[in-house]
């Protein structure tokens, strides 16, 4: 009689000190229970001083990082796992860093031909040096109204404000800078709000059913985590052509950013069919009201188990020599980088 196959040992890392700690812990517990139901041995650990000793002692087969916001999605945690020679779910540190820093990600989206609303990125220190009024006036003049002000990193719509009148912009900036020192100010685009969840599939990527989000007000923190505030349509009520355009755009982004095992990419589909890509999530939320689980609902826990098993089979060359660390330096062109004449002399 053959010996039973040992259950895969999965460490879910959630929590941390980010503003989204609460969401992260809920995501972690939910993923853990799903994987336990699939027969895996799962532990949920906080991102704290106990983490490395716990990893060293328990030796998980796979780590699933579900820490949201800074530390969790900016590549630091992924680089730590790479240093420790661990197999982990999601993009490697380098890719996570690019994808989760919204201004960098938007620039790269443009470079690969994906539409994303016009934007500027401004640090708090700039306002300090040149004065706020002139900058704010220039923003309104150039990008127009309405605008979306959001922290350059972080998620769950924390610190995000839709500005419809120029008088609202200063307060939106103060609210944004409470979360981050860097603000992304983006042109507001109208459209159907759609979340695309993607998982690795063979050598390619598979787009799960698209989720359409309908809310009476903004899809803010309250709407995201209080069941009932938002209404979700799965699959999204798009024409087949528009749905295909979304799948094509998000697949392009997922592959261009090398997001690996899974991602969630948020888009707006305009009436003319333009797919505006807004945001990339390398550690998508997994709470009861999150979008990835809704997209994955038809496949149930088997999908999560499949993700883990796939990661468990990855090659890891040993501590300190992860694929991320071994990758040769790549350069990405962002198009014409010649500075305007005004910058010369």
């Amino acid at each position, binding site marked *: 009689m053959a010996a039973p196959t040992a259950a895969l040992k999965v460490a879910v890392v959630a929590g941390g000190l980010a*503003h989204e*700690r*609460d969401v992260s812990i809920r995501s972690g517990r939910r993923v853990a229970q799903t994987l336990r139901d699939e027969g895996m041995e799962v532990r949920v650990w906080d991102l704290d001083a106990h983490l490395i000793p716990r990893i060293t002692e328990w030796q998980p087969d796979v780590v699933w990082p579900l820490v949201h916001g800074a530390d969790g999605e900016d590549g630091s945690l992924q680089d730590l796992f790479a240093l420790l020679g661990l197999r982990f779910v999601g993009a490697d540190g380098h890719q996570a860093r690019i994808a989760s820093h919204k201004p960098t990600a938007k620039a790269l989206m443009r470079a690969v031909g994906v539409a994303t609303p016009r934007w500027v990125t401004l640090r708090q220190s700039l306002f300090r040096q040149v004065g*706020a009024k002139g900058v704010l006036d220039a923003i309104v003049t150039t990008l127009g109204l309405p605008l979306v002000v959001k922290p350059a990193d972080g998620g769950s719509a924390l610190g995000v404000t839709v500005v419809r009148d120029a008088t609202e912009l*200063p307060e939106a900036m103060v609210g944004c800078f409470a979360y981050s020192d860097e603000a992304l100010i983006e042109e507001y685009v109208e459209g159907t709000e759609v979340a695309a969840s993607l998982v690795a599939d063979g050598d390619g990527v598979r787009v799960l059913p698209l989720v359409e989000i309908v809310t009476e007000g903004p899809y803010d*923190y309250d709407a995201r985590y209080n069941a009932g505030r938002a209404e*979700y349509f799965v699959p999204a009520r798009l*024409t*087949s052509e528009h749905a295909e355009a979304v799948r094509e755009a998000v697949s392009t982004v997922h592959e261009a950013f090398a997001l690996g095992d899974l991602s969630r990419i948020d888009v707006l589909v305009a009436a003319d069919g333009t797919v505006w890509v807004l945001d990339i999530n390398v550690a998508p939320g997994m709470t009861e009201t999150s979008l990835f689980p809704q997209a994955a609902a038809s496949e149930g826990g088997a999908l999560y188990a499949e993700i883990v098993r796939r990661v468990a089979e990855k090659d890891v060359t040993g501590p300190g020599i992860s694929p991320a660390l071994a990758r040769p330096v790549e350069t990405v062109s962002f198009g014409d980088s010649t500075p305007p004449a005004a910058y010369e002399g």
Partner: protein
Amino acid sequence: MTQPPRPARGNRLDPWFDSYAERAHGMRASEIRALFAVASRPEVVSLAGGMPNINSLPLDYLAELSARIMRENGPKALQYGSGQGEIFMREQIVEVMRYDAIHAHPDDVVITTGSQQALDLVTEIFINPGDVIVAEAPSYVGALGVFRAYQADVVHVPLDDDGLIPEALDATLTRLEAEGRRAKFLYTVPNYHNPAGVTLSEERRPRIVEICKRHHVLILEDNPYGLLGFDSDPLPALKSYDADQTIYLGSFSKMFGPGYRIGWAAAPHAVREKLVLASEAAILSPTMWGQMVMTAYLREYDWYTQVKEFRGEYRARGNAMMSALQEFLPETRWTVPTGGFYTWVTLPEGLDAKAMLPRAVTNLVAYVSGTAFYYDGQGADHMRLSFCYPTPENIREGVRRLSHVVHAEMELVDMFGTGPHDHPARGVETPTPDQV
């Protein structure tokens, strides 16, 4: 274009969305609640929570006491009991209330699951939707949550360093009468106010009682901190001036610990009867086990000496808070408590404590925004700082971190020319335990 199958209705992820009572529609978890999740980490100095510091309780004694009760009286301890609470517990509570100059009979007392349940019961039996409750400005966040749940209309009355201002109360009640709106009761925390930290002066106490009596307005006197004056015994309770005018709420949560969740209401006879019926409908009976342990503790242990030890600890922490504010945040103003857990800080002009909270969490310090303590979204220019739980060293470090947050925010506000504003109440934002 080909159309995909269109679901007629979306999924709200809550099959009972259309079944909730109207009062539940506003209930929601806010981003502020989420931010408090970070406050539980040891790296964060939380000046937010009202958790008592109970490390000096005689835990070995309590362990032996608990074991003895379970060994000798286990079947009774684990059984249902009287809906009003056990007579032995009520007798001890009558003795405790003597420190507040209240001379009550055990029959006047109803045992509840913390005084929070007593608040709920009183509101349940008196308040119809739209009824007026008068409360201090600011007021205890946990009480406001109950009042919202019963759809009351809360009218705030200002306080100053001597507590609730009698003239303002009289004027408010007169105005309400002129508008044809009678206040059902005055909710007040006279001692070491949460969140304001002030105490109603002895001179004002009979005046408050007289004003309420003249306007036929019941007083709901909430007194969880009364025994925790830094250097003094309690002032006479409002109830001591007129027992029939006042429902008094007491609690063991601060003078002992909140773990057993034992509080009480001492009420006029007719009110007490209704409170018992309402409590039986809600919980059948309060914890028998907790009442037995608490009664034995009060009978056998020198509990008042223990309370004095708590006072000394809170005095040291309160002093640490005052010194730290003077050292690091001289541009703010704050109340100087003579007991209890809290000080109420007024921020420099233009700052918004609610908007500033994410920055504070990033800097590993937490507080409660003043907006939590108003019914109508006021209070953005205030914050409540608690000194009950962190060590004096951590209090200093927390205020030092907070000073960086305040100074950064001052620069930002100055840069963008923004100011605080009332945050419109968005429905019932039930407080987290760390806000209470």
